């Protein structure tokens, strides 16, 4: 089943590349929707009691102890669902943009997008470290061509910077992956299966070195301060759709990897590194938000808000409590939904005004009320307004942070204030005020454009009031993980109600 899920978009990518240009977009969307259906079927056949399910295992490279092994747990499932949901929406939102003059054409956009989807799904499903590494690196190729082929001037340089950062991280990871093989070979038969590696008895010092390899790669991916500098450049130059694919799907691999590999394989080293990682996460939270406030380019702003959010997710992961873990998982999903909405709506705005500069936009609200409304909702989701789904995850992370140490919580909470500033100020400057004559003719959103963000809005509101499905899926996984790490704590307190208001909204 998981194989079908992965190979369907990959086959679709090849089909789109071979079919005539006129068919690219319908076929691409069809494949993406079929993958969505496959994803839903996977979710339906998943049983909510933890453990890895729907597993498949075949020998791949016998000499290296490598298997083609797939399986999903709660975390993997949620990210799979997020991916299959976002891709058709991106294709819908970018329907006409990919044909724009000077870009590489709709066919290659659709084909690369589907390839990226298939490889990302493989990343979230892989339960063999070697397989994970292979697809982890392979996602960069479609991502590179998406950034380099579509978007604004200067994208070539941005794509190069993106790729260099990611490949450098990948090679650091390679060192650790090789190290794992050596350790595993020393203790008998070499194997890359996650289930074997989790049982492995890695020496303290070796474990810490290997942990660092993994962590650096994921910190570049996620990104964390100080390895984040590629992020804003890339989101600025790429199209909003590519931005969604990169920030909402690809970057999740970073935090996903921290949870699954850093904590799963190196529990001792993870605990040892906690103070260091939490410091970096806190710097990311505050620094990302502060820099976001100062941005003039709306896409840079969104990119940097994500830096702040990824800081919070990492914080949740490394507090090593069930609240933190669950919060981090929920945050990954909710950040995907909220930021995707923000990117796409900002993209609509850019199509209409022809500029991404906040300074040059004002008074759009009156001529395009739907656009303004959606931007506001997406923005409010980003700042964690109660009633929208990111609030719950943010709240859980703050609980875990205060649990870890009051000062950590205190610093983390400033994110709420800062995010209110960057979101609301951005909204105020672009949307409100008198409508200048050149904005008068702006048309409001069309049906296609609304349809592309509507599912995100519905999900944000629905999970804002009823997060139980997400919690039910993620809690068992976090329980297993905490057991692996060896941390004992109270039974997960599931927060259903939005009684406690956090900070200033």
């Amino acid at each position, binding site marked *: 089943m998981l194989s079908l899920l992965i190979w369907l978009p990959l086959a679709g990518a090849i089909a789109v590349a071979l079919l005539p240009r006129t068919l690219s977009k319908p076929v691409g969307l069809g494949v993406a929707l079929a993958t969505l259906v496959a994803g839903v079927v996977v979710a339906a056949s998943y049983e909510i009691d933890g453990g890895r399910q729907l597993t498949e295992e075949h020998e*791949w490279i016998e*000499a290296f102890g490598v298997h083609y092994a797939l399986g999903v747990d709660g975390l993997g499932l949620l990210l799979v669902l997020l991916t299959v949901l976002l891709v058709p929406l991106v294709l819908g939102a970018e329907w006409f943009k990919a044909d724009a003059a000077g870009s590489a054409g709709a066919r290659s956009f659709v084909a690369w997008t589907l390839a990226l989807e298939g490889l990302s799904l493989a990343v979230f499903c892989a339960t063999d470290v070697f397989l994970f590494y292979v697809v982890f690196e*392979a996602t960069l190729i479609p991502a590179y061509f998406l950034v380099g082929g579509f978007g604004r001037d200067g994208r070539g340089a941005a794509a190069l910077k993106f790729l260099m950062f990611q490949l450098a991280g990948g090679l650091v990871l*390679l060192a650790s992956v090789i190290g794992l093989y*050596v350790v595993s070979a020393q203790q008998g038969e070499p194997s890359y299966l996650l289930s074997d590696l989790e049982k492995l008895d890695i020496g303290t010092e070796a474990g810490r070195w290997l942990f660092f390899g993994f962590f650096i790669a994921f910190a570049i991916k996620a990104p964390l301060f100080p390895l984040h500098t590629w992020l804003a450049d890339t989101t600025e130059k790429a199209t909003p759709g590519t931005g969604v694919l990169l920030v909402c799907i690809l970057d999740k691999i970073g935090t996903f990897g921290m949870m699954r590999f850093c904590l799963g394989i190196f529990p001792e080293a993870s605990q040892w590194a906690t103070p260091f990682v939490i410091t970096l996460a806190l710097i990311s939270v505050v620094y990302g938000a502060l820099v976001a406030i100062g941005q003039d380019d709306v896409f840079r702003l969104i990119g940097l808000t994500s830096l702040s959010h990824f800081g919070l997710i990492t914080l949740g992961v490394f507090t090593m409590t069930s609240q933190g873990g669950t919060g981090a998982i929920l945050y990954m999903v909710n950040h995907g939904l909220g930021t995707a909405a923000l990117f796409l709506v900002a993209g609509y705005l850019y199509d209409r005004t022809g500029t991404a500069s906040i300074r040059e936009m004002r008074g759009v609200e009156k001529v395009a009320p739907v656009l303004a409304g959606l931007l506001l909702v997406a923005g409010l989701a980003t700042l964690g307004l109660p009633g929208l789904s990111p609030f719950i995850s943010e709240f859980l992370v703050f609980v875990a942070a205060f649990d870890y140490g009051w000062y950590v919580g205190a610093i983390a909470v400033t994110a709420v204030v800062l995010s209110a500033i960057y979101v609301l100020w951005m909204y105020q400057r672009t949307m409100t005020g008198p409508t200048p004559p050149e904005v008068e003719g702006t048309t409001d959103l069309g049906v296609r454009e609304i349809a592309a963000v509507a599912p995100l809005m519905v999900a944000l509101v629905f999970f804002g009031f009823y997060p139980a499905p997400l919690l039910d899926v993620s809690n068992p996984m976090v329980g297993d993980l905490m057991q692996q790490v060896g941390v004992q704590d109270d039974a997960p307190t599931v927060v259903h109600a939005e009684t406690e208001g956090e900070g200033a909204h």
Partner: protein
Amino acid sequence: MEFVKPELEYAELLPLLIVFGGACVGVMLEAFLPRGTRRLPQVGLALVTVVAALVATVVVGMGLDEHAGADGSGGSEGRGLVGAMGSIVVDGPTVYLWGLLLVFALGGVALFGEQRLEGGVSAFTGQAAALPGTEGEREASTRGLEHTEVYPLLLFAVFGMLLFPASGDLLTMFVALEVLSLPLYLLCGLARRRRLLSQEAAMKYFLLGAFASGFFLYGAALVYGYAGSVSFAGINEAVRAGSANHGLLLAGIGLLAVGLLFKVGAAPFQAWTPDVYQGAPTAVTAFMAAGTKVAAFGALLRLLYVAFGGERWSWQPMLWVIAIASMILGAILAIVQNDVKRMLAYSSVAHTGFILVGVLGVQSAGDLAQGQYTSLEGVLFYLTTYGFAMIGAFAIVTLVRDAGGEATAYDRWAGLGRTSPLVAGAFAFFLLSMAGIPLTAGFIGKWAVFTSALSAGAWPVVLVAIACSILAITFYVRHIRLMFFTEPSQDGAGVVTRSSLLTSGTIVVCLAATLVMGVVPGPVLDLVTGAGDFIR
């Protein structure tokens, strides 16, 4: 001294004999056929010879098991036989390398035979003896002359390459070294266009190569002085027994290594690489880059693992230094190039470093885990992936042309991805394989050599190798960006010329090999593992 009639195992040495015979017949054809009618018989002969040798190699490989433990191989893991009175060793690695070399030779013949790119003539000069820019040269080119001697020369070089890793003593190895080098020196100087550059390349290669041969010979003399034997088995025994004059042995190893490291293009003996790769006709460069490296690494492995296996602790530190120097130098100098062929040349220096990382990862059998592969196997696999990527990449270089022939300057490649996405895509794929991106063969190769080095505890070298891989990615990716995301330059861009099936077929085969070995490396790895160890 009594003369003993040598006994030759004709069946097992058949691949060697076929290639040598084919080369001699080629010379005959050259002597007796009229000039205009030579090309077709020569190409046909070369193809038939290489294919026949390949078939013979497969047959020999299948029959290797019958020789297991025979011929005084002394219970070691290797299987095969020591033939020709101890001069030639036909064991698993030898047969694998033979197969590999012959496949690359096939690609070489195909590229040599290409005529469509130059508008009906080959890429080799019409009359090598005519001075560049003289009346004689013009006349040769108007009469459409060509040198068909290149095919016998190629076969002689292939013969040398086959003999090189199979040699069982220092003298045979030296003869093989010369047999493989001399035709290559000549071939390098035969370019039809930019002849001065080509002749300069040949001259440099010859002079430096002659020096390297001298080093090798000197080293062989010193080692003979130490061990009292030139056969690898004899040297091995003497090394393990130990004796006085240890300095003699160390100096000998060093000098022998200089000779071989020159051939593989490792730093600090890499100085000829960029000039020769750039100046030589690209078809020659493709064949040489893959073939010489494979053969010379085969010889290096045999020399170090078999003859000096007991002296491992002496040569491993030397290889550490050389591997690190090659990787750093190759990667950094490749960044500042602005010519595709030079860039590939420096990248091949870096690759030499990566392969050396594998070579120095040798461990005694007891240290390896059950089911873990050896460093020899890793190196053999890397050589396979490297050769296919290099031949494919250089074959594509022959396609991209402007009015002055091959357009190798970077600015001529700008925007190639828009005009010819398939060719640019294939080139990008080869570059990605050299960079070691997963799902390409290069990744698996890199993984294999790095792992064996790390298992052997050479973690500092592996860390440097990783850092150099990151550096190397810069210039590979920059070139991809140049092809796909840069506007074509104003003063003329290169265009992809339609080639005949010879070149395009070679490219497709290399592409397929690079992809298949990246996605399902299992069969090739099994082949490598099945090759087993050297006979000691």
